[in-house]
């Protein structure tokens, strides 16, 4: 019953006018930017981190969560109308959703995506509220060795296990880990890989890397090939409402998608791509009209969209209770918390209980706002797709560079941003996943210090990692997850596309 009273307190905080405004701004910006092609929620949060630097921490974090959820809703609109998924989690939605839009059923596709997202996010957020306190009780007993084991699992699953190529995924991860080494080591004060450049002593900012890889890299990539592939949004014709038949075919996929999405999002298994693909496959198997799949089956939109949003809420579970980001967006959100010197983890629930429960309550409120924004007002968002591509990307670049220099006004930071942009371009061009690099940068130093603290406690004996059954099991899982894709090559066919 504790959860319930905490949640009530959270709602009391969340309905304060200032926090409602933050949530509203968050969902508005999140949807707007999510609708724009090529920008996912990770980039949106990364772009806005520097802007919120001087705002109230509680409000900003509520805003980030609104952006996260909003970006998820907005991404599906782009996927359906433009066949250009804003983020990898919407790739599956584009499969059937775009076909539906081409067949003149864009309205129902958007509606089932929005309502499915609403249902899933509602259930999954409730799941978050129920599950988090239990996980905190377990996590509070975790030693540094357990954290090290958990981070190993996160590294491996994000980069190797489910990617199109373990080698490319691990390379991306290694790049992030390498950047994570840069700067002054927190335990000993030793400078690593700074090459005598004073600006590098503070290390590489997560936002600079994320914005460079996602925004600048994307701009380079789209420019390099846009001449060959111009795209136009499909206009929404006819009623946007779903028929009775549509409802009947949608509600089960919504629930199934939620059930698939939430646990996979909560596990350190690498974001929303897997549950969306899984949900799509299951819906195709269970459908009474499997022949419609590939030609615009509504189940193929309803299920994955629900799975997508449920896993978004799911990733908040390890993020808030363990401080463990399992997707690029969660990694950037973690950077957002750290910007205010708030470290997510079990202590967050005791030290900042009001903030956590205010955030959870705001997620419920943001979800209702998003349903209103995305169903009756969907036409407004579609207009955003009419911004000419040159201006859109020019604006993104201005905003990206502005955020970077506002946080850290130096030419070095801009050079880093450009450098990461070039790296991001090369990675996109040769099909290297981006997310592992961001996760590597943020988790690398944490894993380093968790390992070293374990070894300090054991007076340098590495066996401490295997003597505790919990960490031994986790390290075992990480090793299996690393070796499995090399042994079973077929597993990598599980997911074809990233980004």
């Amino acid at each position, binding site marked *: 019953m504790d959860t319930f009273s905490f949640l009530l307190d959270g709602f009391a905080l969340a309905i304060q006018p200032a926090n409602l405004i933050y949530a509203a701004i968050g969902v508005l910006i999140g949807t707007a930017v999510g609708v724009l092609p090529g920008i996912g929620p990770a980039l949106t949060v990364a772009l806005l981190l*520097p*802007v919120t*630097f*001087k*705002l109230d921490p509680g409000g900003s974090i509520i805003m980030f969560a609104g952006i996260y959820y909003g970006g998820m809703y907005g991404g599906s609109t782009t996927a359906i109308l433009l066949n250009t998924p804003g983020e990898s989690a919407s790739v599956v939605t584009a499969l059937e959703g775009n076909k539906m839009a081409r067949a003149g059923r864009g309205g129902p596709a958007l509606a089932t995506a929005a309502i499915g997202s609403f249902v899933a996010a509602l259930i999954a957020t409730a799941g978050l509220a129920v599950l988090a306190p239990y996980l905190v009780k377990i996590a509070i007993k975790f030693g540094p060795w357990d954290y090290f084991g958990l981070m190993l699992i996160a590294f491996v699953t994000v980069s190797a296990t489910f990617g199109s190529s373990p*080698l490319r995924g*691990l*390379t991306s991860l*290694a790049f992030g*880990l*390498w950047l994570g*080494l840069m700067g002054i*080591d927190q*335990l*000993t*004060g*030793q400078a*690593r*890989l700074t*090459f005598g450049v004073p600006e590098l002593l503070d290390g590489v900012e997560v936002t600079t890397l994320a914005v460079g890889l996602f925004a*600048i890299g994307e*701009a*380079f990539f*789209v*420019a*390099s*090939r*846009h*001449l*060959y592939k111009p795209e136009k949004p499909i206009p929404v014709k006819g009623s946007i409402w779903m028929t009775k038949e549509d409802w009947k075919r949608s509600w089960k996929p919504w629930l199934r998608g939620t059930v698939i999405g939430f646990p996979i999002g909560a596990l350190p298994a690498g974001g929303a791509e897997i549950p969306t693909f899984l949900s799509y496959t299951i819906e195709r198997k269970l459908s009474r009209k499997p022949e419609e799949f590939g030609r615009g089956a509504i189940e193929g939109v309803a299920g994955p969209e629900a799975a997508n949003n449920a896993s978004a809420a799911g990733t908040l579970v390890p993020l808030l209770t363990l401080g463990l980001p399992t997707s690029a967006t969660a990694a950037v959100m973690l950077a957002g918390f750290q910007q205010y010197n708030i470290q997510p983890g079990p202590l967050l629930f005791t030290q900042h209980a009001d903030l956590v429960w205010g955030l959870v309550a705001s997620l419920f409120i943001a979800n209702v706002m998003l349903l209103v924004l995305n169903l009756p007002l969907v036409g407004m968002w579609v207009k955003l797709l009419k911004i000419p*591509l*040159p*201006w859109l*990307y*020019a*604006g993104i*670049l*201005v*905003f990206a*560079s*502005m955020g970077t*220099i*506002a*946080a850290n*006004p130096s*030419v070095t930071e*801009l*050079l880093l941003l*450009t450098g990461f*942009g070039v790296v991001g*371009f090369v990675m996109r061009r*040769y099909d290297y996943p981006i997310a592992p690099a961001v996760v590597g940068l943020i988790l*690398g130093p944490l894993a*380093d210090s968790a*390992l*070293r603290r374990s*070894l*300090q406690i054991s*007076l*340098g004996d590495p066996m401490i990692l295997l003597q505790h059954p919990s960490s031994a099991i986790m390290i075992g899982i990480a090793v299996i997850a690393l070796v499995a894709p090399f042994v079973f090559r077929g597993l990598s066919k599980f997911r074809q596309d990233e980004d």
Partner: protein
Amino acid sequence: MTQKILHTPNRPAAVLAVILFAIATITYWDASHMKVRATYGMSASAASYFVAILFVALAIGHLVTAFKPSDIDVEAADWMAVGWIGLALAGLIGSIWLGGGFILGSTLLFALTARAFGRKALLADLCLGAVIGVLVFLVFNKLLTLALPQGPLERLF
């Protein structure tokens, strides 16, 4: 000495293997020059050595794939457009480096990026970029009290 160019079916992987080896070497060199030692357990250099080893392993992995046909199709790129974006970013960096300020820099960035995406109306884009730059500057400096780099234009406000 006769020049013999190594032919591999997957050139990018071979190039990347060389880059990865180079990063591994730099990381190893950097770690071997660290002076601070931990009393117990690992020093700060241990993680560097680990990452260096990881890079060597990945480089070997890339070298192996370099002799297999590539499993991805790389599309033809419009290098002109890429160059324009590079120029746009150089414009921003140059403007801030030389004290031209944020508004001038972002104007150049906006207009040249739009050019990269195929727009020919450079003058109109310069004007639009300037308007956006001024607006952003006002919001950031006045509303959010974040300091953007100042140049002659910014000091007018």
